[in-house]
């Protein structure tokens, strides 16, 4: 062996010329390594593949002309972007390549942003400066942020766009769920704009829970909230029987009666189910409350709790007091004060109390609680952070009960503990943690939610948008959310509006719900007399809607008080309601308007003026529109409906003033009761 090596050395370096030659060759080879590496690099391979692919296409000439070889780079110093992705993804700007099934040669889908202005990694993450697939797409030792899976891509929209964004429904839903399911009661979320995210689920106070329900119901609810109501937002804490026994014991023992709430039944609960059902229907309880129907579908709104088994939950005397005036028990409730009389309270409470499920409490048998159990229950109630969501007498709301999530989108993977077999990425961790939190440790307190896979993905999307970049973007690069105003009407009318919970459904000056029309400019829109009548007895304007304005049984005084306030305060600066008369238009103009209504603009497709022939079912019925709206409002609406109510379904027809005036004349002549001016003549 040694001999052989010696002879080899002798052969190579035997004389100085030969040695020089050998050394030169070695140098030459080593110098060639760098260019060779460049020549055989991955991106060149992809570019060759691209050129080969387009060669046989009909649009080859155009594509070849667009093609630029070499490393392609987008450099945006403002955004800190150095992206070389287009070195391999060569066809991103070629819309005609849409028939290519897979990347890297597909065009980018149509989006509102230009590639040259935003680059790639702003949305997709990954390592932009890398020129190999592995380094660009995956996490490496020097780069933790891999490509974001497509299912979470909208989280990147959310870094700059702070409010709801059309075209990013998953992000919108995720943000909504964070508030709606009360995640932010326990986890603080400081938004990139500095505001603290607020919960919208409004969990009830438990300080007087003994007035409302029984210990047995509390026990069953604590064990499995979804067994009582599938739509309940309260999660399942997976409590043992003993834990639920002791916590229910504490909550009942801790409850103090509200003065006046323990009033004896003033009216016997009626057992006339048909009268109850019709009062439930007339009061439009279903606008806010859902009930499971015979087919198993949960139908109704989600503002208030589901009522499928409410008879198992509430005490009859509490329910009657609640129906009489919910604000006596909960001042902040979204439920209106209906002003029911005794007979109505009896009818409705009888109807609701009959909504029971005999299985729900059948196996709940609790013995009288011992002081030890109550003490243990109190400890458990503190341990599980119940007071993060619920007001509980004698227990302080814990501060920062769960980890803050304001920058969760940047949590280093090295700080996470993964489950065996799961992908080591942040999105996977977040999704798995939401799906089954207790898998990550039996001692964890985070409860089990019943989210669908799509809901989990949307929550993860919203959370991933809470990252360092979102928090540090200069304001010039962000699109701010419209701030929710805390508008509150003043005076007696304001108190009345709170009592009737108008803001649970209506929006005024940027505050309130979106179930019913925005009333910010209602005073310019409607006629006084109509409004008084409507408040006293709301008739149906839109026949196809299941959510409608309920009847609150207002007195004349209350209806007038509200009307005066609305007519005075809620006026649009651009519509002067007295600028056009409510009658007296020339007959020719009215006739022209009628022709336009049925001919050129075909309004009968969506509206009804003549109940015999028109069938339009989308917009409000217009048989009495002449007694309802002001002429000035109709005219302005004809000219540009979106200017008066953004997002309304009525299209802007860009009408001339003559057409709009003629239609106004025709519509204002529709006074209802089959006595329209046109019909008379």
């Amino acid at each position: 062996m040694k001999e052989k090596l010696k002879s080899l050395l002798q052969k190579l370096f035997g004389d100085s010329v030969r040695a020089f030659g050998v050394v030169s060759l070695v140098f030459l080879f080593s110098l060639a390594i760098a260019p060779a590496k460049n020549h055989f690099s991955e991106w060149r391979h992809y570019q060759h593949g691209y050129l080969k692919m387009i060669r046989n296409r009909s649009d080859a000439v155009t594509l070849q002309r667009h093609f630029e070889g070499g490393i392609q780079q987008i450099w945006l110093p403002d955004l800190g972007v150095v992206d070389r992705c287009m070195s391999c993804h060569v066809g991103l700007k070629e819309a005609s390549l849409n028939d290519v099934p897979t990347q890297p040669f597909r065009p980018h889908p149509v989006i509102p942003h230009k590639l040259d202005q935003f680059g790639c990694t702003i949305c997709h993450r990954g390592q932009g400066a890398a020129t190999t697939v592995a380094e660009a797409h995956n996490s490496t030792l020097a780069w933790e942020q891999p490509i974001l899976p497509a299912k979470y891509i909208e989280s990147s929209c959310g870094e700059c766009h702070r409010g709801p964004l059309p075209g990013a429904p998953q992000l919108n839903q995720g943000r909504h769920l964070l508030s709606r399911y009360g995640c932010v009661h326990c986890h603080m979320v400081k938004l990139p704009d500095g505001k603290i995210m607020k919960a919208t689920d409004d969990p009830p106070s438990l300080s007087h829970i003994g007035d409302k329900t029984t210990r047995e119901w509390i026990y069953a609810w604590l064990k499995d909230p979804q067994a009582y109501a599938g739509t309940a937002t309260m999660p399942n804490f997976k409590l043992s029987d003993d834990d639920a026994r002791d916590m229910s014991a504490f909550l009942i023992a801790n409850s103090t009666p509200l003065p006046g709430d323990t009033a004896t039944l003033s009216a016997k609960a009626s057992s006339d189910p048909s009268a109850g059902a019709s009062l439930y229907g007339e009061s439009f309880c279903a606008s806010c409350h859902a009930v499971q129907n015979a087919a198993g579908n949960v139908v109704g709104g989600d503002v208030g709790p589901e009522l499928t088994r409410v008879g198992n939950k509430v005490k009859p005397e509490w329910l009657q007091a609640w129906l009489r005036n919910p604000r006596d028990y909960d001042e902040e409730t979204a439920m209106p004060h209906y002003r029911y009389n005794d007979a109505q309270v009896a009818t409705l409470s009888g109807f609701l109390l009959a909504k029971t499920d005999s299985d729900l409490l059948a196996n709940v048998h609790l013995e009288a609680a011992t002081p030890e159990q109550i003490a243990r229950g109190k400890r458990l109630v503190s341990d599980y952070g119940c007071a993060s969501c619920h007001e509980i007498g004698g227990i302080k709301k814990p501060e920062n009960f769960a980890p803050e999530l304001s920058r969760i989108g940047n949590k280093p993977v090295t700080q996470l503990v993964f489950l065996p077999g799961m992908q080591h990425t942040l999105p996977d961790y977040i999704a798995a943690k939401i799906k089954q939190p207790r898998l990550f440790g039996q001692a964890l307190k985070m409860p089990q939610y019943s989210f669908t896979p799509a809901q989990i993905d949307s929550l993860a999307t919203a959370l991933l948008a809470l990252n360092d970049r979102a928090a540090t973007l200069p304001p010039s690069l962000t699109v701010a959310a419209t701030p929710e105003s805390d508008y509150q009407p003043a005076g007696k009318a304001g108190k009345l509006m709170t009592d009737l919970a108008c803001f649970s459904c209506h929006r005024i000056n940027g505050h309130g719900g979106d179930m019913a029309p925005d009333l910010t400019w209602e005073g310019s829109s409607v006629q006084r007399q109509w409004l008084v009548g409507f408040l006293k007895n709301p008739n149906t304007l839109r026949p196809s809607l299941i959510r409608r304005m309920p009847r609150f049984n207002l007195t004349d005084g209350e209806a007038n008080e509200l009307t005066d306030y609305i007519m005075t305060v809620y006026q649009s600066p651009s519509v002067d309601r007295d600028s056009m008369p409510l009658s007296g238009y020339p007959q020719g103009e009215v006739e022209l308007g009628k022709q336009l209504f049925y001919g050129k603009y075909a309004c009968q497709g969506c509206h009804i003026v003549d109940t015999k022939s028109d069938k339009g079912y989308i917009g409000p019925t217009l048989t009495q529109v002449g007694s309802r709206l002001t002429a000035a409002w109709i005219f302005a609406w004809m000219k540009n409906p979106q200017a008066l109510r953004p997002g309304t379904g009525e299209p802007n027809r860009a009408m001339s003033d003559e057409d709009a005036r003629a239609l106004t004349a025709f519509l204002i002549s529709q006074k209802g009761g089959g006595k329209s001016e046109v019909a008379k003549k």
Partner: protein
Amino acid sequence: MIRQSLSIVALFATSLTTSCSRKTASAPLPQPTAFGSAIVESSGGKQTSQAGMALPQPLVVQVNDQQGTAVPGAMIEFSAAAGVAFDPAYGLTDSSGQVATNVTLGGIAGRYQLTAFTIDKSRKKVALTIEEIALGYQQTLGRQLNDQYCERCHNPESTVERVSNFDNLEIKPHPFSEGDTLNKMNDADLTAIIGHGGPALNKSALMPAWGNTLSKSDIEALISYTRAISDPPGHDAGPVYAKN
């Protein structure tokens, strides 16, 4: 140099073996206790979701025997093009002969053909193909505009929350999935009818002009959405992803 290359080879070898061992480590399939002869869709076909995202409803398929009765305990496996995820990817049918799976579609907009198969008594594969649609950004925007402005007339189906106006119209509008009609209209025609109303193409005035309400890109988004959901698909419906 030699040592370096040696270590690279060693690294490569270990990574190869680990990747191989990972493959073999997957859990064995549960054994079917019964066999059916047909597989049918119970619910969850023809859904639309956004590309890369979970379908709103689970896909439920059922195994039947020759008499058409449900077969519990039969094995169903799901498969589709790369990028589609099933949770679970296989399972035994429950007491009503069904298996439900949550489906996440691939990251590129298009039509995804999912296959569910079972084996019959003679060990032959019986398969069912179900199509789902993944929408891109533009199409998602189009869907949202459709829900806001168009659907009340163009979708003949009513739901509890939304009563359709379709039956009230003398001249019936075309549902957006009606490929037989809409595929024959080019983008320019659709743009004209949306922007200027039915009369622009000598059609019913009940279709109003939306050109002052919707922007040009809104109209493009709507057209792109109709193309994506058209049934049968037109030539620009986007790629079809099936299992190789």
